[in-house]
């Protein structure tokens, strides 16, 4: 093996420090701590109690399952809502307008989740813009309770995550040659056939990376469920938050954190396998 130059180590050491100190060690630490349990006598022992607490209390694992299902649901919803937009911006609208319309899509991303979710809170509240609008046009007589339930939570989760899906889908669609669609159309394929035999298979890599980003944002989100969701719309991150910042049961919180990490990694792993993608592609 050839001798390494000093420059190599100059590059390697900071990266190693970053990855070991901030990624590997904290997560291993969290994993080990999730098995620590303080007995009534105050001694720290190794035990599975933190995980047992999760399974014994219905609210925990019900929230866990609900978070998983809702995250998958919102990801699918984000795909359904944004795919026509991505297609429109790459294939339908004239090029000179599309760059400006793409720019508009980026603005809510950079403004940040907290501000946009707050905007939705004002829109959906009893005295909010939508209720006032509906009453003024005479569609309803009294306020509709739109805020603090699963509906408002879903809107918030969808809004803050869906835009992250458009960009990867657009870059996949851009490389799709128009003549493929033209050829299919000349040969008599219907719009629907073109859509699910050509466009969707071709765009799968973009859909997969966008879907994974959306899913990650949704399952790990705290702001939208907490601000827009009501008492009944619990989210698993809220349970972790409570363990750390309300009841100060950090060991149990570590177990919950580890469970969330396992949940998200498993679903992403399955999604990657199903679509034949690699994690490296998702990042780029």
């Amino acid at each position: 093996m050839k001798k390494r130059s000093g420059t190599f180590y100059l590059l390697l050491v900071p990266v190693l420090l970053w990855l070991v100190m901030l990624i590997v060690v904290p997560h291993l630490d969290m994993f080990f701590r999730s098995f620590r349990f303080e007995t009534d006598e105050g001694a720290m022992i190794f035990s599975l109690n933190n995980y047992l607490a999760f399974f014994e209390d219905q609210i925990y694992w019900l929230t866990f399952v609900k978070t998983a299902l809702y995250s998958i649901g919102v990801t699918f919803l984000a795909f359904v809502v944004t795919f026509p937009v991505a297609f429109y911006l790459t294939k339908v609208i004239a090029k000179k307008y599309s760059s400006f319309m793409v720019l508009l899509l980026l603005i809510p991303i950079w403004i940040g989740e907290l501000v946009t979710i707050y905007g939705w809170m004002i829109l959906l509240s009893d005295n909010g813009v939508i209720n006032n609008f509906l009453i003024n046009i005479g569609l309803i007589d009294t306020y509709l309770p739109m805020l603090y339930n699963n509906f408002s939570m879903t809107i918030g989760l969808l809004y803050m995550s869906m835009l992250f899906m458009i960009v990867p889908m657009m870059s996949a669609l851009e490389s799709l040659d128009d003549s493929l669609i033209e050829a299919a159309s000349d040969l008599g394929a219907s719009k629907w056939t073109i859509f699910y035999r050509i466009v969707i298979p071709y765009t799968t890599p973009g859909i997969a990376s966008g879907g994974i980003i959306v899913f990650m944002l949704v399952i790990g989100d705290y702001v939208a469920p907490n601000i827009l969701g009501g008492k009944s719309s619990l989210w698993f991150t809220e349970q972790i938050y409570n363990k750390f910042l309300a009841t100060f049961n950090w060991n149990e919180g570590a177990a919950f954190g580890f469970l969330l990490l396992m949940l998200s990694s498993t679903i992403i792993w399955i999604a990657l396998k199903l679509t034949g993608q690699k994690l490296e592609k998702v990042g780029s």
Partner: protein
Amino acid sequence: MIRTLPCSRLYKVGYSLYILLFYIFLIMPLVTICVLAFNDSNFIALPWNGFSLDWFFADTDDRLGLFKDPDLMMSVWTSVETGFFVAMFSTIVGTIAALLFEEERFRFKGLLYFLALAPLVIPGVVLGISILLTSTYTGTYMEETFGWDMEFLSPGFWLVVIGQFSFGATYVMLLVGARLKKFDKVLEEAALSLRATRLEVIRLITLPFLRPAIIGAFVVTFLISFSNFNTTIFLIGSDPTLPVDLYSRIKFSSTPVLNAVSFMIVMFITFSAMISFVLNRKKI
């Protein structure tokens, strides 16, 4: 279907209408906030009571405007400082990581690269709690064993910087790495054969080539830091960043000053986006 193919009028109108509705959905919360920031009312939502600049400049008993609220201005400043340090550290280490992974070959490179991408698929909440656990227990250990008081390990400004840096560096690595892939390696080889050292090559040839991407990555990580909530909330000390401050105000004491802050953020992001749009178009 696409630009070159004819399609029915109904389809065209329906599709355009959907895109219009999508964009309305997109800007509705932002427009609402911006309008209500000037509402002469003590409540965040409707009814509209007339135009007022109170929530920017007032300093009366029941109204404290944005620019007269020292706590709010302080949290803006904390966010700016945090964003600056996070962007700086992330840019340095992320660029080093991009150079390492694109240009060097070594054992366990695949594993390290996987770890460097991991923050993309670790929920921000989990990153936050794992870093909180490790730093707190390390801090306690250091104090009890060696009597060293390592303040940056307890929740506070520097821990927030560390936590945000842990994923910021990944984004920089991806952004700079993408540009590095387009780099013509012949240039480096030419310089090496002219007896430049490896470090000189990086400093004089590679880095100048990467400069636009590095500047872009700095801006991106600053904005990511500025709007981050999920990781920050666990690492915060007594000085909140702007998102954390906004969150606690939304939860516990919402006044229209929130609309005013949001208005400023929306305007800042929109103008920056417009400026970069115009500048980029001139280049083409």
